[in-house]
Every structure is written in C-alpha cells, then in structure tokens.
C-alpha cells in the first residue's frame, strides 16, 4: 500500500496512538509535555484517502541512564494501523524521524520499546540498553538507542550545519555593516538559533515543487514611453546629506585618482 509520510500537528497523531498503543486511556490524554516545542517533530503516514495509518513523534529529551546528555532525542508514540503491520509503514515513519534528527545536528536517538517491536527497531539500527521491565497496562519494555550523525545541509552538501563567527563577519562585509566584536558574538548565536529553526524547511523534499516568488499571477504591464514631469530636483537634493552642482556628492571612491 502506498503511503505518504509528512510532518503534522501533534493532535493529528492522537487518534491512532490511542487506539493502537493506549486503549486504556482517552484520546485527550495523548498530549505530552514538549509537544509544542519548535524542535519536536510529529509525523504521520497517510493512506491515499488521507487516513492516518502510522505515527511517531520525536523530541529533545535525555535518556534516564544519561540525564545530562546534551543532544539526545526521544522517539515516542510509534504506532501502525493494526491491519497494515508488516507493510513497511513503520520503517518509513522511523526514517522520517531519523531525518528530522539528522537535520537538527544529530545525537542520541532512544525509545522505550515494547518487547514485540525490538526486531523492528533493530532493523532501524537500534540496540537495546539495560534490562527488560514490565509497564503497567502495556507489557514488557526495553530501552533502545542509536547514534544519528549530524548531517550537512541536505540540499547543499558541504554547507556547514551551523553558522560561524567567520561567516557572520563575511556577511557583515557583504551587507556593508560595521559590527562591533560584541555584536558579532551576539549575532552569531542569534542567527544560528533562527537558522536551526529553519532546518525543517531546508530539509524538506521539494524537488517536485516550483518556487513562488509572488503570490498572485500578475503579468508585467508596459505604458507608452511619453515624457512626464518627475520629482523636483531641488526638492530631492535638499534631502541629501551632501550635494553640489545639482548632483549628489559622495566621498572619494577607492582606487580613483584624487
């Protein structure tokens, strides 16, 4: 069966998760802390008619065995429609999760796996960690994990994942902006944060989508080339910092003879 995996709002994943994973709870109880964090990704596999047949979420969270881990991601709510197990849907959803983590600098990806799903996660490159335990209402579980490497910008191989102070200084020169050292340090950090947020856009597969430069399909119009009065020269020059002989005046241009 053909499915399409896409990033969705948290609530889109609730119904299937509740039915498959937590039938003892209500749909409204499916919301989790961190669902709305900008880095959290919720994914749904949709059948042709739009029905959600597979789900998963991933969020920044350190594993219980290494609570100080700075770049760990927890996989949660991995569910596949009962009637469609074994058709590869879970693998597609897991791939979208790994892709999401890769695009955000990678790190440790972990989950609490049901005993019955261990083989599935092993196929996704994950290994078990520690002992099996019994989860009330649900059954035996074991922690599983793998390392996900950071990825350079996917559409532009070779582009560094994070903007550096050197990049920022270069951009400031291009933009003709003198920056103080303090501004340079602050902008490097702030631009990196905004670009991290934009990683979800940079990592989308849009190979079949045409860009939109303007929202409406307007055609250029030409008018007859007839002389018309323009702005008053004196009025315009009166606003200039410096003017001479009816023209704008600027300081010396580099390389020119004095």
């Amino acid at each position, binding site marked *: 069966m053909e499915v399409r995996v*896409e990033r*969705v*709002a*948290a*609530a*889109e994943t609730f119904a299937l998760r509740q039915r498959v994973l937590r039938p003892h709870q209500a749909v409204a109880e499916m919301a989790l802390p961190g669902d*709305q964090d900008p880095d959290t990704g919720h994914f749904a596999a949709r059948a042709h008619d739009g029905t959600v047949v597979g789900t998963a979420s991933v969020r920044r969270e350190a594993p219980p065995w290494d609570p100080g881990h700075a770049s760990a991601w927890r996989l949660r709510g991995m569910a596949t429609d009962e009637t469609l197990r074994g058709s590869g849907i879970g693998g597609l959803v897991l791939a979208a999760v790994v892709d999401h983590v890769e695009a955000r600098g990678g790190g440790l990806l972990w989950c609490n796996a049901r005993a019955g799903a261990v083989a599935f996660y092993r196929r996704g490159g994950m290994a078990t960690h520690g002992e099996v335990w019994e989860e009330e209402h649900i059954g035996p579980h074991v922690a599983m994990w793998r390392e996900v490497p950071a990825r350079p*910008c996917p*559409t*532009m191989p*070779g*582009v560094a994942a994070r*903007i550096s102070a050197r990049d920022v200084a270069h*951009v*400031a020169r*291009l*933009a*003709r*902006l*003198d*920056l103080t050292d303090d*501004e340079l340090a602050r*902008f490097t950090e*702030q*631009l990196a*944060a*905004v*670009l991290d*947020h*934009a*990683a*979800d*856009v*940079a990592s*989308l597969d*849009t190979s079949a*989508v*045409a*860009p*939109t*430069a*303007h*929202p*409406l399909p*307007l055609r*250029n119009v030409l*008018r007859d080339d007839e002389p018309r009065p323009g702005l*008053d020269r004196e*009025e*315009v020059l009166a*606003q*200039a*910092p*410096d003017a001479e002989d009816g023209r*704008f005046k*600027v*300081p*010396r*241009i*580099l390389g020119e003879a004095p």
Partner: protein
Amino acid sequence: MTGEEIAGAVRAGRLSARDVLEEHLERIGGREPEVHAFNLVTVEDARAAAAEIDRRVARGQDPGPLAGVPVALKDNLCTRGIPTTCSSRILEGWRPPYDATVVERVRAAGAVVVGKTNLDEFAMGSSTENSAFGPTRNPHDPTRVPGGSSGGSAAAVAAGFAPVALGSDTGGSIRQPAALCGVVGAKPTYGVVSRYGLVAFASSLDQIGPLATTVADAALVLEAIAGHDPADSTSLPGAAPSVRQTLDAGVGGVRVGVLRELTEGVDPDVLKRMREAADALADVGAAVEEVSVPATVYGLSAYYLIAPAEASSNLARYDGVRYGLRERAPDVTAMYSRTRAKGFGAEVKRRIMLGTYALSAGYYDAYYGQAQRVRTLIIRDFAAAYERVDVLLAPTAPTTAFAVGAKTENPLAMYLSDVCTIPSNLAGHPAISIPFGTGDDGLPVGVQVLAPALGEPDMFRVAAALEKAAPGPAGEAGRGER
C-alpha cells in the same frame, strides 16, 4: 464616535470637522505622554485640513466618505514635506518629496491626518520596542507591549486618539497589534491596496490595511484606499472588492473552518475564546468544521528566510548618499558601512545579516529557494481547504499582550508571536483580526478570519457577525478612559 458616525454627521453639517479634531487632539494631549503612539502629531496641518473640510460643507459640497474623520498614519507611509522616519535613525528628519497613494486617497475621501505613528524600525518586529524613538505602550496596560510592528497605529485607535489608522502588514504587523490592543485590523489581498509610497520591507509580502474600532469602519477605510494604481506594478487591475454592501448579510450557510495547525502552541485562554467564536458563528447559522492546512507548520521558518532576504535587498538603498543619515569617512565604502552601523538598530541589522546570508552564494537554494517552494506548498494546501470552506478561523496571536522587555533578548521567541498571521502573507490572502473578549489576565484577545484571494466580502461579513457576538464591548479598558 466611530468614523462612520463622524463622517455622517460632518457631511450632514451636524458636526464640524474642527470640533471633531480638537476633541481628538485633547485626548492625545491627555494620554500620549504615557502611550507614545506617535512619532509626530501634525497639529497645524490637521487644523488646516479640518478647516478646509468645514468650508466645503458650508459651500454645499460633499467632502467624501471619510469627511472629517481623524486618521493616524504609520510612519513608514510617505507624506510630502512631513518627516517620515520608519522609526529609524537612518531616516530621521527626512521629508519625502511625494505622498503615498493611500495618503492621497484618504485625504481625497475627506479624512484629516493627525500624525505619524510609531513602529518597529522599518516594520521589523512584533512589539514596537524596536523603535529608535522608544517603545509604544499598550493603552490597556502600559506595562505591556501593544504588539507590532504597527503598534503605534493600534495603540492610537485603542486610546481614542483617532477612530481609524493605517498600518502595513508583512507577517502580521496590522493584525497582531490589533489583537493585542483590542481593535479591528485587516490585511487585504496582496495587490488590492497600492503600496506606492510605502517604504519597502519585504516586497512580495507587504500590504497596507486599516485599523479601526469597528468592522464597519475598517471596511469604510479599505474601500477608500483600495483599487488599481498604475504607480504600483503589483497593484491588481480592475475594481477592488466591495465589502460594505454585504457587511450585514449574516453568515447563514457560510462554511467556516477552524484552522487546526494554527491552534497549536496557543495559550489555553486565547484558544478558549477562539473556540467560543467558532461556536458563536455556528449559533447564527454558519456551518463550522475543523480543517487542516498542513504546510502552515512551515510558515514561520519560510517567512524568516524570505522576509529578511527581501529586506536585505530593499534596505541596501540606505547608504548615506541620497537621503537621511551620513557618517563621515575618507572613502565611500567606509562611509556606507559606518552610516549603516550607526543608522540601523539591532533587529534591522540582524535581519539584513540573516537575509544576506540566505541569499549568498552556496546557501541560496538551501534557504531562500527552499522557502519559496514551501510557499507554493502553503498556497496549495490553502486551496484544498477552500474547496471545503469559505473562510478559516484561527487565533490572531498565541498570547495576549506580553510585558515590555519580555522578549527583546530572544529574537526567536519574538518571531513566534507571528506564527498565526504569517501564512496569509505567504499566500497573499486577506485576513482580519476582531477583538473577542479577554484572556485570563483581562487583556484583549483577537480572533482571525482568513479568506482566499479577493475573499474580502465573505471575510468582512463573518467578521461583522463575530463582532456582534463578541463578549462585552471590544476594547472596553482602553475606551473607558476616553
């Protein structure tokens, strides 16, 4: 009095434009020191304009649909001979040699310009704290921001300094401050209102629109400023959509979709009001359902690549040569760099840098090109939603007005204030914010009605129905002190 009431009374000779103006100037005198809505109050020009309106009425002429109505203009709209600063040091003292088309049009309709309102520098911001001339305060609670970037226009209307104002909306800069100040604010379809004389920020997104205390006033002003203008190459040909005619037609049979993705990450008290608004529409005959527009989750990221990229190009013109500030330097390149370093504030520099980076060699496809493709996806998903419904409903902003200073050190947190408004700009669609009750903190909440391109008639009709259903008089706190 609303703009409609003022114009009606002035046209009928029951009220003089002079008296209307003096009453508003008195209110400005009372609270402006606290609110700081204006960069400039044009007292003498306004008195001369009001006197001219009164003379025309005395001669038996009709000054037009905005006769004697005081209007406040965002200070990024060019006014000939009157300083236009964009709240930036780089344009301080600049007097444009021409009027924006919208300025000509409101004057031609009989309006009286009372002043130029404060904004985030070059309209870049969501709180009006990025002004070189100091922040504007929310009239409902001066410890809170008015939203932005048209915060001065929204505060001026909320404080009763003018019944109507003009703003510009690139990612929500009319609607978000309207919501936070408890007034109505509309962003028309891209191309409906001429941008000739609007200082450019992000040209594929910028659009001018009205702020007002009522939906009818917003419609009145929109009709006065809309329509083709040969001076703006993005202006739509043909007549502008008529919105006033169907304003009171009700919403029986209108299909309304609650936009699921834009309810994510919204404060519970704000969301509760939006749900009440949806219920209120259902009560008066609309068919309400929940609708998904999946690609809107990428709106914020795409916007913060596209808008800075276009801004970095548009703001290249501030180089100390033709107008505004110039810093002395031995050669022209050093003059450019020093002038721009001194003239621009932190947020403008940040966006110029971000945009220059997103457009620079090696990054263009990954960032700007990719964001433009996302824009196509958003337009496509909206089109699918509008096959099922006539208009969409969403919160205008994820929170009520936040405290002054709360987000100034964290640009990303500030950018998140625009998450609900940005998709309409990316699609070029119209959207309007209507006050709908208050949050748990007693501050105004705005609900947004979104429509497809040129869907203004339905959008205003639904907005008018929401206004009628809104709990308590909208913006009561601000008006109570008038």
